[in-house]
């Protein structure tokens, strides 16, 4: 083991070349958020993953981001346990009614500026589970979504591309959403949130994979609030 570990120092890591930011996503993100207040977080983002009722396929792929091949940490991204430490909520699954409150509370516990990334087909609009009595349908029904990563499940490379777009974006001045106290309830947020465009088509056998793309969605929020207000 020692030999292998020391050998690792000499070997080149088997990492894939860093995926560039997903095309289009960054421009979208910037266009949507620039009018909000200017906070620059730099090349460092902490991610709190939330499973809001997914089939755990997305979780498998998200976990894979930590392995040597994708090596999430080289971009300055890392997963954290407490939402208090997080900047990004990476949410998967069609929000089940049973997880609705928990998702909202976690969102509320996260300090501003923060982003919500909807990851996977179900997270966008409920996916195959849309219409069930148990499912609220789409993350944006509960919290505002800033970035959407489709696919069932999206491959690690696709998730990584989305997250890299986000970090590129956060490294640029004038990126993040405002900071301010808020007291809304789940219902308020849901009302505030405009129905974002849905991904065309369901998830079929052949389009399920490789068709993953990153879409940016508007985050319609209340009136802009400046830092420190």
């Amino acid at each position, binding site marked *: 083991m020692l030999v292998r570990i020391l050998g690792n120092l000499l070997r080149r890591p088997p990492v894939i070349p860093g995926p560039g930011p997903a095309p289009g996503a960054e421009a979208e993100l910037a266009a949507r958020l620039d009018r909000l207040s200017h906070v620059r*977080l730099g090349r460092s983002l*902490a991610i709190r993953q939330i499973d809001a009722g997914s089939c755990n396929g997305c979780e498998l792929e998200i976990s894979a981001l930590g392995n*040597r091949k994708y*090596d999430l*940490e080289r971009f300055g991204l890392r997963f954290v*346990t*407490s939402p*208090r430490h997080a*900047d990004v909520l990476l949410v998967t699954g069609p929000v089940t009614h049973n997880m609705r409150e928990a998702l909202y509370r976690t969102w509320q516990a996260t*300090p501003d500026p923060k982003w919500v990334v909807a990851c996977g087909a179900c997270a966008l609009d409920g996916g195959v589970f849309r219409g069930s009595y148990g499912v609220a349908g789409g993350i944006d029904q509960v919290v505002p979504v800033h970035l959407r990563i489709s696919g069932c499940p999206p491959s690690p490379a696709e998730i990584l591309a989305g997250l890299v777009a986000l970090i590129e974006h956060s490294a640029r001045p004038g990126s993040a959403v405002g900071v301010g106290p808020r007291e809304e309830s789940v219902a308020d947020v849901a009302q505030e949130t405009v129905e974002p465009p849905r991904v065309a088509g369901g998830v079929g056998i052949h389009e399920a994979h490789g068709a993953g793309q990153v879409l940016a969605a508007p985050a319609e929020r209340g009136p802009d609030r400046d830092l420190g207000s």
Partner: protein
Amino acid sequence: MIVQAIGAAFLQLLQMGLVLVAAPLLTGFVSQVRARLMGRQGPPLLQPFRDLLRLLRKEAVVQDETSWLFTATPFLVFSTLWLAAGLVPTFASGLALAPAADLVALVGLLAVARVLTMLAALDTGAGFGALGAVRQSLVAVLAGPAMLMAIFAVAAAMRSTSLPRMAEFVLSGGVEPRLSLAIALLALTMLALADNARMPVDGPGAGSATIGGATSLEYSGRHLALIEAAGMLRLLIHASLIACIFVPWGMALPGDGALAPVIGLGAFAAKMAGAGVALALTEVLSTRIGIRRLGEYGGWALMAGMLAAIFLSVSLGA
């Protein structure tokens, strides 16, 4: 006399600044080396600075019903550890603040930081954070005494508990290698691992098994930045403490020329790099011990400290 005092004050200022830069660098270096050992590319060396900056720019969420202690603790802990780090000679021994605290007082400062952290965790009231405080209390109860016993041995061999004096004593060749010193080094290393929540006692990403992370679960934004920075400082304190006592070579002494501090800086960087590699190797190669074994681990560290002191006091008399 005045020139000397100004020189000491200047060195002290330099030292206070140096530790602020060196602490995140050491942490970043350790995670970089660890990542490379695991065959990953790992985060950039400067990532800890970026993380701290990001946290500083964020909003701070403070839990309901916490008191002033919760918000004051990050500042107090950080400044306490900053002072403590500034008191350990790194590149030069003639520091102005040296008489403010010797090694014993340094242990006291570390204890203050630990107690404050635990109180802040208890202030959040409940759940896992409080359990983190419980676990940290076990580390604290074992680490402080074990460290003092190891210091006892070292101080008895070097006839002082003042760090600059100890370093100078070693540099002057006044101490021959002894078994007791090796055991004391072992004890101090074990404690450094335990106190910094490093493997094999603890490690990142262990969920409910962690000690270190649990107490800071409710912190966010600038408070979290300070808590994390304090953690980095603590690691630096332990590393530079061991370097100062056991390998002081390269350190600039008060009488040395103007170039000596520069050499001292280089030597310090090399020592910290060595410590970083050693730590990363330990973390990659070891298995985390269960918390039920934590008592044993601390007990062994305490025993090692005791043993060092006993060996030394027996051999000194002979």
